[in-house]
């Protein structure tokens, strides 16, 4: 019985970690899914915005000496601006080009940004200095036997939940949210109805990028490690989460992120830790093959 | 004589929107059949159903006497698929169990193989029969299924015995080898069966657009769909694709047959281009053609394979009067070659002169059918086109 209890507590701990991770994936996945919903583009560079978010906050905290929460807020703003610029510079000129061209541009941007970060910050793994973080982060918020939940995890989870609710309200209760939904249905008709399509797309990029940058900071805190290639794997996993939930659907991205985070932590714990990243690739491939519309998404057909 | 195209009770709905509602249509060989109707009447949807691009919700299409859409309802197809799967799985389980349980030690391998072939041969015949004559074969299949199930259950309850048989010096190869020898061909046979069009239709697979094209159906599109970055000649040669056979290895080796095929394709393409009077543009890129010329090129691409049935979706759109006169001449020439032409057209003058038989669609329903004169005087057609009933006229 003793060992069973230990096992179940280990399992619970894994579950808690998985949910935390899943929340972060969901934050990144939302960016993918919103952009895909609006302009049907897989924004490969989104993972890089996530990485930039982590680095920007790091630079502000260490070099400029800003307090952590100020840096946090500022990073969101900068990332939002950055998302708008990304769209303006790279994607907007290709709005009417073949989709392959936009996709290749997105990949090119991703590589460019990643290597730019490599040149600026170097390839060493960095971490947020302990002393600038709120000291409460490292303490346990809640302990039950072997299972513990740190304040950092509480912070991550609550930030995730708050922003998700905020996002839901924005999409469903505001004018710009309505406009976003309209644009995702039909760009031309929306333009004819007097919606500024480009403005809506910029807004989508801004929100998605802010969320991505925030996820970058949170992961940087959680794993205590930031490095220029972090956006690559995280981006792909978040994309897998978006696909799992149903690309183009925001609640789908949240659900997908949660499921994938748990699946990954439990898979790594019980199946094979070497194939930790493989689990999300496998999930992604399986979903695309067998249920491309995802858990809660709509089927996209081609018009003849 | 059978009609070349026979559409029976065809319906198509997109979600809640009904695009076609029990449409019936018949086209005889070497006839020019017109299809008219106001915008959004479902004409292009009908074309897409005919060419296999959109699956109809319900109904039958026969092309040259062959059905080309699934014949059963979705539920029945699902039942069929599930029972076949079960049949297969039990079949695979049953025979090795039979070997390991019932056969006395004195049996030789050859006899085992013969027995296996007999059993599986019976099953193949049964599957075949099931495909050909549907109903009684169905019941037979369920008898087999039931017997498999009972045997399987019985064998499972005696699992120890069979293990003992192998354990008591009965070589494993006696079970495995004959099994492999008979079971694999059986499965291959069944999969081969699935390649045949009839069987695939039973299992709910449509005939794909490319297969339909190879059966002799050619079409053009309302909004031109050419291969714009290729030369005019290559566009037409692609239309000849189904007539050629060379695959990867022939292409790699470039033997005589492959070269002859290429030459024949070239000849056919040049001839088709001459037929539509486009030979002076043969070596230009399709994107450099004028709009009218692109329409001609689409027709040439559809014609080069000598289809039995040619579907033209608004071919005269964007043509000037001289060009549409030429188009009419061309269509008469096509009919003379023995090809049936089904044509959607808005230009009533063209249609009245051209068609032998006209069908009128309105809101997805076939409201009238007949010779051009009959259609002209049909009150329902007038109503559909002018809006309002006869009282307002």
């Amino acid at each position: 019985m003793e060992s069973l209890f230990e096992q179940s507590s280990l399992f619970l701990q894994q579950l808690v970690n998985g949910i935390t991770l899943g929340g972060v994936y969901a934050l990144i996945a939302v960016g993918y899914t919103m952009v895909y919903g609006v302009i049907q583009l897989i924004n490969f560079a989104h993972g890089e915005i996530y990485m930039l978010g982590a680095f920007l906050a790091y630079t502000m905290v260490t070099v400029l000496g800003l307090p952590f929460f100020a840096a946090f807020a500022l990073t969101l703003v900068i990332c939002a601006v950055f998302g708008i610029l990304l769209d303006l510079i790279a994607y907007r000129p290709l709005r009417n080009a073949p989709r392959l061209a936009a996709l290749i541009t997105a990949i090119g941007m991703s590589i460019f940004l990643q290597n730019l970060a490599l040149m600026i910050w170097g390839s060493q793994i960095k971490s947020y200095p302990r002393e600038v973080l709120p000291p409460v982060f490292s303490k346990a918020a809640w302990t039950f036997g072997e299972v513990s939940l740190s304040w950092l995890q509480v912070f991550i989870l609550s930030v995730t939940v708050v922003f998700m609710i905020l996002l839901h309200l924005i999409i469903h209760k505001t004018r710009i949210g309505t406009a976003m939904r309209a644009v995702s249905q039909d760009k031309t008709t929306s333009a004819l109805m007097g919606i500024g399509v480009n403005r809506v797309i910029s807004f989508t990029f801004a929100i998605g990028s802010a969320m991505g940058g925030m996820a970058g900071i949170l992961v940087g805190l959680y794993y205590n490690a930031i490095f220029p290639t972090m956006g690559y794997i995280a981006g792909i996993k978040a994309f897998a989460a978006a696909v799992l939930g149903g690309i183009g659907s925001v609640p789908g991205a949240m659900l997908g992120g949660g499921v994938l985070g748990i699946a990954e932590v439990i898979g790594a714990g019980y199946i094979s830790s070497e194939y930790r990243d493989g689990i999300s690739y496998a999930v992604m491939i399986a979903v695309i093959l067998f249920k491309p519309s995802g858990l809660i998404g709509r089927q996209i057909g081609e018009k003849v | 004589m059978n009609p070349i195209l026979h559409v029976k009770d065809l319906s198509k709905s997109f979600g809640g929107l009904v695009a076609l509602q029990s449409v019936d249509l018949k086209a005889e060989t070497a006839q020019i059949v017109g299809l008219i109707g106001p915008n959004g009447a479902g004409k292009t949807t009908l074309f897409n159903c005919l060419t296999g691009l959109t699956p109809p919700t319900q109904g039958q299409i026969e092309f040259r006497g062959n059905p080309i859409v699934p014949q059963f309802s979705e539920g029945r197809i699902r039942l069929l698929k599930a029972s076949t799967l079960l049949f297969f799985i039990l079949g695979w389980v049953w025979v090795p169990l039979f070997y390991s349980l019932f056969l006395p030690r004195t049996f030789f391998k050859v006899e085992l193989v013969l027995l296996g072939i007999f059993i599986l041969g019976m099953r193949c015949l049964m599957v075949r029969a099931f495909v050909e004559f549907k109903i009684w074969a169905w019941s037979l299949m369920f008898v087999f299924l039931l017997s498999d199930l009972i045997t399987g259950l019985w064998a499972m309850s005696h699992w120890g015995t069979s293990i003992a048989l192998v354990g008591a010096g009965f070589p494993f190869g006696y079970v495995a080898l004959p099994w492999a020898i008979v079971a694999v061909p059986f499965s291959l046979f069944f999969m081969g069966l699935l390649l045949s069009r009839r069987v695939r239709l039973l299992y709910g697979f449509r005939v794909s657009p490319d297969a339909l094209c190879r059966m002799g159906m050619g079409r053009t599109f309302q909004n031109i769909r050419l291969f714009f970055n290729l030369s005019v000649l290559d566009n037409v040669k692609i239309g000849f694709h189904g007539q050629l056979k060379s695959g990867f290895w022939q292409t790699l080796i470039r033997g005589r047959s492959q070269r002859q095929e290429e030459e024949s394709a070239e000849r056919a393409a040049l001839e088709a281009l001459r037929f539509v009077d486009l030979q002076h543009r043969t070596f230009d890129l399709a994107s450099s053609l004028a709009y009218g010329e692109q329409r001609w090129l689409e027709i040439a691409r559809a014609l080069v394979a000598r289809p039995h049935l040619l579907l033209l979706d608004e071919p005269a759109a964007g043509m000037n009067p001289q060009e549409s006169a030429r188009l009419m001449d061309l269509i008469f020439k096509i009919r003379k070659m023995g090809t049936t032409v089904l044509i959607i057209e808005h230009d009533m003058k063209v249609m009245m002169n051209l068609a032998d038989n006209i069908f009128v669609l309105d809101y997805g329903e076939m409201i009238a059918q007949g010779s051009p004169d009959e259609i002209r005087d049909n009150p329902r057609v007038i109503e559909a086109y002018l809006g309002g009933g006869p009282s307002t006229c």
Partner: protein
Amino acid sequence: MPRPQEVNRSQVLIIGLVLLALMLPWLPFGASTNYILRVLTTAVLYMILALGLNIVPGFTGLLDLGYVGFYGIGAYTSGLLAIHYDLSLWVILPLAALNGALWGILLGAPTLRLTGDYFAIVTFGFSELVVLVLRNELWLTRGPMGLPGISPPSIFGHPLTRDWEFFYLIVFLLAVVFVVVRRMEDSRLGRAWFAIREDEIAAQCCGVNLIRYKVTAFAISASIGAMGGAFYAKWFKFIHPDMFKFWESILILCLIVFGGMGSIWGTMLGALILIPLTEILRAVLPQSLFSARYLIYGLILVLMMRWRPEGLIPFESAQAEKAKQTQKRLTGLVGKE
């Protein structure tokens, strides 16, 4: 049937290039000859890889991000066969190509039904999985320790060691691949691919079986990639899972985007310009900046898509050129009759 005695431009070009390549090792570059040869061997290897990749995005119009997976499969097939069975290169090359094609079919058959973006993602996932397997299946691949000590290839019992020998070998392979791809392009198969690239629905209505031709394209592309990998393993004599990461796919994609997707000459030109450029960068830049060289590739992708999406030698102009050749041939025949 005697052909008309007319030599066209591309034939002259081909003969000239082959002669130039054969003369190259004997030109007086002095001490740097071997260095130049090594750079050019790399460039020619990438020309082969680019020709192989080009079949899928260039000819068939599907973005394939997993090409390097097949390159890796080929390299490991070659390395393992060489280490465990000591086979000759001429046995290894077809086996590697076969293995590549096999995996190409296994991956392609279920995934080629997907629309463009999803296909790109699945192929990407495949290449990452390949790297993960290569890295973790220690019993087979020795994982992160890599596979050292692959024997050099030999021809008629004479082992190849010198740079010019490898250079001749890879030029020969390029010639073979070039002929294969040219024949594919100018045939029923190639036309079907082009039709799919231009308009899938119209292609279907012309009798082209989409899945079959996409899978064929994918398998041929994969086998060429695997062959390139097989050569690479035999040439470099050491392979490591990290050599086959996603970046490599991007690099090759970059070559064909730069040169012109869909045009054979364009893809080869792209490789011939960009690969030596990389080597120049390696010589010029300090080590720390050189590791960020992919920055330039990313920039090339973005800028090309913005200003010249069709590449240096666009698909259309390649097709126009082909049409002109056909015209010459046909009018030549007519003139003779």
